[in-house]
C-alpha cells in the first residue's frame, strides 16, 4: 500500500508530480487490489480532473477521456460497439463503475480487457509529459516505447468511429483473468491483430496482420507464424499448456479474421 495520497486538481499538476516512486490512481481497481502489480510510495489521484472526463466525437473519431469508466463507455451513445464488446469482458458491474480506460491502458496487463481491441482498431493515445506538453501516439507505439513514455499521463484515447473489429476473450470464469484475448480489426483496408496472452505477451501481431491484409491464411499457416514469433513463447501455468494456448490463438485469429473479412459481426 502507498504511504501518501495526493489529490491532483489538474492534469498538468498530476503529470508534473509523476516519477519512478509514484503512480497515478485512476479507478483504483488495480492500484488498491490484493496482489496489485502497482508498487508506489505515492499515489496521485486523478479522479477529480475534469479534463480527463468526457466522450466526444470529431472527424470520424471518438475521443474518450482517460478517466472514463468502463460503465460510462457502455452507457455512451458515441462509443462504438466493438469497444463496448471489450468493456463487457469485465464481468463485474461494480468494477466497471470504477475501472477506467486510462487505467487499463497504463497497466499493460497481459490479461488486458481493452488492449487487443485498441490495437486492432488502431487507437491513438493523447499523452501529457512532465512539462505538460501533449503528444499523440498509437497504442502499439506506446507499448513499444513504454520505457520513455511511462511517466506520461494518459489524457485520452481516440478510436475510429467506424471500424470493423471483432474480439474474443477466453477465461475460466467471467471474473477470472483471461488466458487469451484476441482482436482482429480492419481500419482503412489494413488488418490488425491485437493479442493479450496471459503471462506471455501484449502486442500487435504485425506479421500476421500484414499477411492477413494481403490474403487469407489457413489455421496451420497462422500456427506456424505464431510459432515463429519470439514474443509468443508460451509456458505451462495455471492457465494451461503451451500447446493449448498456441492452438487457441491460431484458431481464434483464423475465425475472427474470417468474420472481419466477411463483414459479419
Amino acid at each position: 500500500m502507498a504511504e501518501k495520497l495526493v489529490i491532483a486538481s489538474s492534469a498538468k499538476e498530476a503529470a508534473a508530480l509523476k516519477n519512478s516512486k509514484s503512480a497515478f490512481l485512476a479507478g483504483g481497481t488495480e492500484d488498491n487490489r490484493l496482489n496489485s502489480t502497482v508498487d508506489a510510495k505515492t499515489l496521485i489521484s486523478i479522479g477529480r480532473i475534469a479534463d480527463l472526463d468526457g466522450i466526444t466525437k470529431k472527424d470520424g473519431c471518438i475521443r474518450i477521456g482517460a478517466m472514463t469508466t468502463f460503465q460510462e463507455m457502455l452507457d455512451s451513445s458515441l462509443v462504438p460497439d466493438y469497444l463496448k464488446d471489450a468493456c463487457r469482458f469485465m464481468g463485474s458491474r461494480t468494477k466497471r463503475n470504477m475501472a477506467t480506460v486510462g487505467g487499463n491502458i497504463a497497466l499493460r496487463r497481459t490479461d488486458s480487457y481493452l488492449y487487443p481491441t485498441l490495437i486492432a482498431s488502431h487507437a491513438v493515445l493523447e499523452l501529457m509529459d512532465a512539462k505538460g506538453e501533449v503528444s499523440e501516439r498509437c497504442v502499439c507505439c506506446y507499448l513499444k516505447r513504454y520505457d520513455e513514455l511511462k511517466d506520461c499521463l494518459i489524457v485520452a484515447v481516440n478510436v475510429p468511429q467506424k471500424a470493423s473489429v471483432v474480439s474474443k476473450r477466453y477465461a475460466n470464469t467471467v471474473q477470472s483473468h483471461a488466458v487469451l484475448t484476441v482482436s482482429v480489426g480492419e481500419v482503412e483496408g489494413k488488418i490488425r491483430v491485437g493479442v493479450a496472452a496471459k503471462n506471455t505477451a501484449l502486442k500487435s501481431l504485425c506479421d500476421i496482420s500484414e499477411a492477413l491484409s494481403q490474403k487469407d491464411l489457413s489455421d496451420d499457416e497462422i500456427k506456424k507464424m505464431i510459432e515463429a514469433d519470439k514474443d509468443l513463447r508460451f509456458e505451462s501455468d495455471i492457465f494451461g499448456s503451451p500447446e493449448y494456448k498456441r492452438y487457441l490463438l491460431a484458431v481464434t485469429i483464423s475465425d475472427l479474421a474470417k468474420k472481419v473479412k466477411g463483414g459479419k459481426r
Partner: protein
Amino acid sequence: MKLALEKMKGGCYKSEIAPSFRPELEVIGKPGAKIDGPQLVSGERAFVEDYVTPDTCYMVVLRSPHASAYINSIDDSEARKVEGVIEILTAYNTPETHYMQAGQGNPEPSPHDRRLFNLKVRHVGDRVAAVIAETLEAAKEACSKIKVDYEVLPAVFTVEEAMAPGAPLVHNGIVEYRSGAPADLDEYNKKAGDPREGKVIYQFPLHADIHKNIAASNKGEIGNVDEAFAHSDAVVEATYQTSQIQHTPLETHLCFAKMEGGRLTVYASTQVPYHVRRIVGWVTGLPENKIHIIKTRVGGGYGSKQDILIEDLTGYAAFVTGRPVFCHNTREEEFIANSTRHPMRVHVKMSGNKDGQITGIFMEVCANTGPYGNHCLTVPMNSCSKTLPLFKCDNMRYDLKVYYTNTPPAGAYQGYGTPKGTYGLMMAMAELADKLGIDYKDMVLKNHVEEGYMLEILKGLGEGREGNVVPVGSCGLDEAVRKGCDMINWGKKEVSSDPDWKIGKGFAMIMQGSGLPGLDHSEAIAKLETDGTVILNSGGADIGTGLDTISAKIVAEILKLPMDRITVNSGDTDSCAFDTGAYASSGTFFSGNASVVATRKLKDMIIKEAAFQMGEKEEDLDVRAPGEVYSKKTGKTLSYYELSHTACSGTGHGQMIAHGTFTTAASSVPYGAHFAQVAVNTRTGEIKVQKFYALQDAGTPINPEVALCQMYGAVMKSIGHTLHEDMILDKKGRCLTANMTDYGVPMISEAPEDFKAVLIDVNDEFGPFGAKSISEIACNGAAPAIGIAIHDACGVWIRNWPMTPEKVLKALGKI
C-alpha cells in the same frame, strides 16, 4: 426484485414465491419469512466479527513455507520486542495434547494426529507460531520477525506418490489405540522415526498403516463380483479423478474468545458448537462447565465450519493470556490452511447384459486426506455408502484406501465424498450403456432401487461400526428420473446453428442421508413463558439453512401459536442441550425431530395443566389457534397466557418446560436426479451449461422457498467443481490459486441459461412432518450429468475434474 416491484406498485405480491405442500398443515410446507431474515438482511450485529470488543487483541499465525520439515528451533526474541505483543505461542510452550480438528461425534473416527503446534510441519501453510498482540499491525510485524530453523524433508502430494515404495512418510511417530489395539503394536512402534513426528492415536482401528502413508482403509463385498464380470455381455473399466477444491464461504474462518469470571467464552461461526466445546476443552484442559460456546450467525459453512480449525487456537490463546483474542483468516489461509474436499481417484469396473441389467460393480477409491486425518475414513466411505445403494445389483464390491500427503488439509465438504463416488458410478454406467448400445435412461430405470428394496450393501458401510441393513424407505427416485427426462426431452438431439457447437444431454441419480442413524443425537428444550409465548432452546446449529425457522414452524404447528410468539435460541452451549451439530444433512431430520419431541411433550404438559386448571378431563381438551386450550366437551377455553400465568403465580405447579431427545436407527434417504444440457465448442473446447434441472425428493419441504434456494446454491457449487474450480499446487506444494480470481469460483454468468429446481412430493415416515434433507444431496449430480452430456455432445469422456476446454480439446485430438 419482481416481488419488490409488485409490492411497490400493487401493495402486495402477485407471483407465487414457491409451491406449497401439505394443505392440512398451517405453516409447515408453506413459504414464509425466515425468522433470522430481518436481522441478516438489514446488516444488524449477527456474525462473530460484530461482537469483537475494542479491548480485543489480534492473533496472526506464522505458517510453514515448506510442505514437509522438522522444526529445529524457533527464535522469537526479536518478535517479542515489538510493541504491543502479548504472547507468542509455538510447539515449545503449548500442550502436547494430541487431538484432531474434525467436528465429529465422540469417540471420533478421525485419528488424533496433531497438536496445537507440531514440531514437524506437514504442508505449506501449517501452523508454526501464533502472535497475540494489541493490534493487528503489531501481530503481523512480530510474525515477520520470528526466525525458524527448518530441516526440510521430501514430500508427497498425490496418492500415487504416497503409495509408492519408499515414499517419504507424512506421519512416522508412535501409534496408540484407545481401543482395539493390534497385538503387534509394540513391534510396529519400533519403526517410529524422529520424536518430533509426534503421535497418531486411534479411538478404534481404522485399518491404517502410517508406514505406508495409509490413514484409513475399508473394503466389503456382497455377492460375487468376479463371477459377475466373467459372465456378463459387457464390462467397462475406467478411472475418474477429482480435484482439490475449497468451500470459499463468504465469511472466512474467524473466532473471538475471552475469559470472564474464570470461564472461557468463545464466539464461533460453527456447525458444531458442542464439538467445539469438547475440543477447546481438550486443548485448554478446562472442563465443559467452564466453557461457553456462542454460535453466532454463520456466513457460509458447507462443511468447512464442521471442523474446529481456528477455535482451538483462539480459545487457547484467550485462556493463556487472559485477554480477549480475535483471529480472522485471510482468503489465502482459507485455501492453504483450512480444509478442502478430499481429492479422490475412483476406479470403477461395471458389467451388464444386453437387456440393460447391471450385473456387477466394483469401486476402488483412493482418497487424499492431506497432512492430517480429518474425516479420513468417513468421507471416502460416503463415496460408496451414498452411491452403491442406488443400484439393485446383487454383486458389488468396494475397496477404499485413504492416504496421507503434504497437500493443504482435507476435511468435510457438502456432499461428503458422495459427489465423487456418484461421478465415478454414473459415468461408468453411461459408458456401459454406450458399450452395450442401449439407452442410458432405460438402464437407469431398470437398475435403480425402489421402496422396500433391502440394502444388503450397507452392512459393511457403517461409520467405523457395522452398518444397519435396512429397506429403502420413501423414495422419489423413479419420479425424479421420469419427470426430468420429460422436462429435458430426453432422446431428442438438439442441433446448434453454429456447426462448431455440439449439444448433448446427461443426467445422474443422486442420494444422500438425513443424518447418521445410531450416531447423531439432538436435543431441544421448549419453555412456555409466563405470558404464554414459547422459547425453544435448540441444540441444532442453523448455518443459514433455515433450521431455526424449521424449529419455530414445528412449535407453531403443534401448539397452534402465531410465529411471532415463538423464539428459537440455538447453538448456545450454556442454555441449549447437546446436539451433534449440523452435518451429514442432519439438521432438519435430527434437530427438527428433537424440536418435535420437545414441543409434543410441552403440549402434553399444557393439556395436563389445563385439565387441572379448567377442571376438565385431558382427553376432552386440545389446543387451537391463536394459542389456547379449548374443551371439546364444554366449549370452555383457556389461553396459554392465563394458563402459564396461573402456573407461575406462586401457588401454581410452576413453569412448563419440556425436554426432547431424538436418536433413531431409522434412515430417511433423500433421492433425486439432476439433468444437464451442455453445448461444447469442438473448435475451442468451450463448454456451456445450457440447461440444468435439479429434481429432488426432500420429503416435506418445511421451508419450500429456502429449500429451492439451497438446491440452486448447491448446484452452482457443484458446477464450479465440475468445470472451473481447482487448487493447483506447484512442485513444492504451494497453492498457485489461493485467491478468488485465480481459483475460479463460478459467477452468475456461469449459471445455466435455463435453471430449474423441482421438489418431488414424497412424504417420509420418520422425518419431522415427513421432511428429509435437501442441500448436501444437491452437490452430487452436476459432475456426472455434465460429463455424460459432454460425451453425448461430442463423443469424449472427460474423466477428471475440472472439465476444462483444454481437456476437451485433448480428448478430441485437437492438441
